């Protein structure tokens, strides 16, 4: 049924590492949710109240490692898009807030659940995430994670859910503008 390629090439990136219970307010402060609209501005406030260094130092392709329940709290989708706009390639966590996880995949951000890799990695380590093999490589060691479904992978590959559905249905019309809203 699905006509779009669902593979994402292996991703290698430098790790940022955070702890348990990081909520959406510190990922993207609520005070900006209705005022900032430009991707670059949104990205500039990513993790502002968690790690003031992050927005200035993170590079496109970096990977965030996190503890339990990353992204709990509000359903605001900027908590995903601020990192996507920053160029973050993936988030590997012990677990995700439920709505955050859905928002992440639906906005085209690779989210992986793998507690072992999070525990083993240090900030600055280079991780390789191979979604085809469902494995993270870290200093030569493989850390398997539960596979993402072909659909989840192809949503990420498409850049988000609305575009994914358009690809899947073979819709190329340009008279409609793709919009997306966060999960509820």
């Amino acid at each position, binding site marked *: 049924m699905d006509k779009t390629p669902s593979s994402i090439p292996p991703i290698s990136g430098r790790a940022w590492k955070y702890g348990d219970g990081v909520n959406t307010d510190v990922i993207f402060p609520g005070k900006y949710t209705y005022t900032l609209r430009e991707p670059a501005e949104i990205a500039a406030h990513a993790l502002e109240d968690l790690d003031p260094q992050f927005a200035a130092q993170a590079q496109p392709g970096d990977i965030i490692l996190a503890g339990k329940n990353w992204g709990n709290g509000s359903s605001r989708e900027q908590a995903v898009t601020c990192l996507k706009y920053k160029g973050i390639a993936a988030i590997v966590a012990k677990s995700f807030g439920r709505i955050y996880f859905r928002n992440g995949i639906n906005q085209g951000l690779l989210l992986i659940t793998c507690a072992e890799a999070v525990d083993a990695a240090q900030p600055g380590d280079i991780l390789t995430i191979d979604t085809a093999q469902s494995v993270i490589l870290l200093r030569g060691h493989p850390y398997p994670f539960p596979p993402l*479904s072909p659909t989840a992978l192809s949503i990420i590959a498409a850049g988000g859910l609305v575009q994914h*559905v358009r690809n899947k249905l073979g819709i190329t019309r340009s008279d409609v503008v793709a*919009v997306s809203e966060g999960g509820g």
Partner: protein
Amino acid sequence: MGYTFAEKALARAAGLPSAVAGQVVDARPDIVLSHDNTAAIAKIFRTIGVERVLIPDRLAIALDHAVPAPTPQHAQNHAEVRKFVREQGIQHFFEVGRGICHQVLSEAAVILPGQLILGADSHTTHYGWMGAFGAGIGRTEVAALWATGELWLRVPESMKITVTGRLGKGVTAKDLCLYIIGRLGADGGLYQSIEFHGEAIENLSLESRMVIPNMMAEFGAKNAYLPPDQAVFDYLAEALRRRVPTPPHTAEGETPRQDVSALALYPDADARYASSHTFAAEDIPPMVSGPHRVDASAPLDHFRGKAVQQAFLGTCTNGRLEDLALAAEVIRGRSVASGVRLIVIPASAWVLKEAMQRGYIQDFIEAGAVIGVPGCGPCMGNHLGILAPGEVCISTANRNFKGRMGQPEAEIYLANPAVVAASAVAGVIMDPQEL
């Protein structure tokens, strides 16, 4: 290795032989629910570039959140929903006044045990009362489902909650939920499938069972599950007979809907749970939850004497016949205290009709209550009972967040229907046994 309910339900919905917690599957829900937000979803749907909903029979749409339309904007919104329903040929459409989506879909057996329902409403957890898998999703996801019929879902870990014994006099399923959420926290069930087991659960009436998965949205849960028994099957079979006939599902490979128990699912005895908790029903007192968190709950005694200006009996949590019966028993022959409004909103037209036949509505009106049209009423602050700054409301609803009833400077306390009725009579939060 055994499987939990969630693992079995999502494996089936994805057409897989098995699935395990953590796995992401492509699920094909039996029903996709939306309500007054249908017009907004239709706008997203059009941006996909699709004209027609793929399987119109799988949509269920109820107008319930602000009904009948309180403003021209709401009227316009309803008109757009009706137009969409007409254009797409949606059969499961419930007009204003039929009742709250979760109640009317249950009453009409639109969803059955073991099936999957996804809804653009956070309390879609509700359908766990019959052993269905119900979960809330975002609007974009609903639009995608309309277009393709499938959506990715992560199979949740499961928490097993066993409730032993029997609830005491004056203690309801609502109190049980406020107790559990108070004990384990508003995020205690985050992302998980909450499975309820034990004698205290089995002995609950069907209407009481509906309270539990509904409240589990306030526990962070993805879904909740109560094992369906013969009482559930009988209720749904009767509901199907009563329902105005709609075309049966004819998609290939589907079990005839009339066989309500055919798809029922039960977890294996050796299923793996992320955690297990046991509560003794006898330990649970009547509970009240204070502003502005559902887990800010404590025994009723803790809040007794707090002055209230409004008492609200209704919602998908506690607006059913047995809730009205409990409250009517308290109110009969008494009057609502001066300075207090008691607002009674039956969860559905059917509940209203039955409550009339049983004389409950008469009891409420004689006591000085206001009767509202079946729907959500003031639950989320749209209309029909908005609070003023500084006012206090005691409510049978599921949420007491700041501003929920339309006014951030107001306070909402949550309780069971008998406590709400007693508080309306006393003018302060009151134990019905002490009236």
